[in-house]
């Protein structure tokens, strides 16, 4: 099996998931200049709710086909997370919009802790395995083994991202979002209901996070109350890599970060003569993040000036 091709495929799949989560960070940052620290946890809640739904559906209607079950899980997880995103913004961020910048960051950390521990109380400390319900299609593409799930993840992310693109560029809400991102004051003078736009941003971002959460738990076959934290950090790094506040940047950054991680994990052993192994995979995202912030704080596609960071 060709290692390079295999790692490219893995990186692409991972990258599409990162991109979906990164979009949530970037949209919120673009409008509020706030790092929604709790976004990773929304992803985790999405995965947990979907798993619970799948368990429930298998319980009441045994024999349903796997893809239908997963679809049902997504259909419940998405509105649940949308509601959660709405609530987080309303409770933890809206009252602090005029407070010093440290304040919402600290409430964000607080919300993140609360969500994690609630999930732990509800679903327990142990890893929850994703049931083996999806059909196991496999085929070989340019020397790499590709599973049906991988194709599905990439296609669904592409579809969702295309939908988001249309929403932001072509609809009234999208125009209001872009206006709010440029200037909240002027947008509100033009008759944009800024509060509603901000809520909508959180709700949309959370929907994407829910889908990503289901994907990641299906891909790794696991869900855990702690899974959102690292995923969130990596997605944030991806958003910064692409240029935070820039929607195309988040997509590009996510894909790139996925590829960097997969290739890095595949080759780090050879590059360092066996000194560092693939167990350092999680370090790459942080190095990318730090390198971008130090050398090009505006990110790849960001047009904002350096001293913003």
């Amino acid at each position, binding site marked *: 099996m060709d290692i390079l091709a295999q790692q490219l495929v893995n990186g692409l799949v991972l990258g599409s998931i990162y991109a979906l989560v990164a979009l949530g960070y970037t949209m919120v940052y673009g409008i509020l*200049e*706030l*790092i929604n620290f709790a976004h990773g946890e929304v992803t985790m809640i999405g995965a947990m709710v979907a798993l619970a739904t799948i368990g429930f559906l298998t319980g009441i209607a045994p024999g349903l086909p796997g893809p239908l079950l997963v679809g049902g899980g997504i259909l419940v997880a998405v509105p649940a997370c949308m509601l959660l995103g709405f609530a987080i913004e309303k*409770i*933890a961020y809206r*009252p*602090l919009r*005029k*407070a*010093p*910048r*440290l*304040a*919402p*960051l*600290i*409430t964000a*950390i*607080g*919300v*993140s*802790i*609360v969500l*994690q*521990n*609630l999930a*732990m*109380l509800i679903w327990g400390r142990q890893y929850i395995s994703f049931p083996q319900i999806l059909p196991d299609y496999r085929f070989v593409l340019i020397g790499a083994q590709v599973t049906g799930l991988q194709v599905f993840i990439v296609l669904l992310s592409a579809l969702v991202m295309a939908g988001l693109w249309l929403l932001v560029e072509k609809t009234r809400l999208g125009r209001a979002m872009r206006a709010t991102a440029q200037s909240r004051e002027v947008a509100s003078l033009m008759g944009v209901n800024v509060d509603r736009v901000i809520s909508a941003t959180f709700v949309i971002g959370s929907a994407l996070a829910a889908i990503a959460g289901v994907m990641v738990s299906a891909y790794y076959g696991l869900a855990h109350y702690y899974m959102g*934290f690292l995923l969130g*950090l990596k997605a*944030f*790094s991806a958003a*910064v890599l692409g240029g935070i506040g820039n929607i195309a940047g988040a997509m590009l950054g996510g894909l790139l970060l996925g590829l960097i991680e997969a290739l890095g994990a595949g080759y780090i052993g050879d590059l360092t003569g*066996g*000194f*560092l*192994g693939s*167990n*350092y995979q*999680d*370090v790459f*995202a*942080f*190095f990318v*993040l*730090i390198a971008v*912030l*130090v050398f090009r*704080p505006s990110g790849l596609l960001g047009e904002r000036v*350096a*001293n*913003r*960071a």
Partner: protein
Amino acid sequence: MRTALELALARLRARPRLAFALLAILLALLPLLTGATLGRAWVRVLDLSLLYVMLATGLNIVVGYAGLLDLGYIAFYALGAYFYAWLASPHFGLHLPFWAILPMGAAFAGLFGVVLGAPTLRLRGDYLAIVTLGFGEIIRIFLNNLNAPVNITNGPQGINMIDPVRLDGLSFGSPVQVLGLSLAPVHLYYYLFLVLTLLLIFIAYRLQDSRLGRAWAALREDEIAAAAMGINARNVKLLAFAMGATFGGLAGGLFAAFQGFISPDSFNLWESILVVCMIVLGGMGNIPGVILGALLLTLIPEALRYLGDVQRALLGHVFVDPSDLRMLLFGLALVGMMLYRPAGLLPSRVRRREFAAVDGVAEQEQADLYDSRA
């Protein structure tokens, strides 16, 4: 608004010598009283809370004085602890004396503070928070994995059998008889930690009032104005990171000696966040507040353990494991504090004014305080 506590403090402030004597007696007797009434486990908790006071005082220099939100602070605690473990355990077969390692470990952590601080100099506010968080995680991942091919950290198993503190032939590893009293190791460590904590608090106070302390405050309020006044922003920021890291490294070395065992698990992100919580809860930038925050957040979770008994008594069954509730309550407390008392329980005077600002100008100023818009 003045609370009863503040009134009592004001009354004592009028007679500083009496207050000082009372405090000294209280602190000296505290472990003995605690050990006699609540048991030795609580003396251990006191020891740990002193370590957290040291950590919080150190982080307060970075976050409270200089206004740099550091979410990876626990890395320096970890480095101090590992440094001690390397030089005083069978892991490398080295057994250097305590008094020699501790300052070296603090300096080692301080050096890392500069190394990790240097790339972040241009970052402010939330970006800085995320990058420092990343650094903290990187250090932890390395500690977790540096057991092969050369075994430096012994990986996830951690380092075992670390030497206890030994001062002038007196080993803290076994009980000592003083004046007819048998002092257990936890008591001995309490007094050692107490002396060092007081020393660090003293240093922190002196730093606050020093030329450097004023430079930090200026930098926190407005970096550009501070630079225009001739403050070398780079050096002053690096000094803040270095000082904070030194405090952390010192506490880490003590932790290693006290526990006798360390592993990367003790230094995860939540520990960093816990220390940040202590500062925020108590009142950023104000040392009494920070001490209060550190004590509250170490003592409350211990007291929460009794929630299990309460559940059993009331409901006949333990429904929620109290240790699971700990972080949940912390999270709620963080959100609640920020919403209702953002300056902390004992805020510093400056910060109280900032958070209480009502008119438009002050509002703009406070919005810019941690703003990345330069």
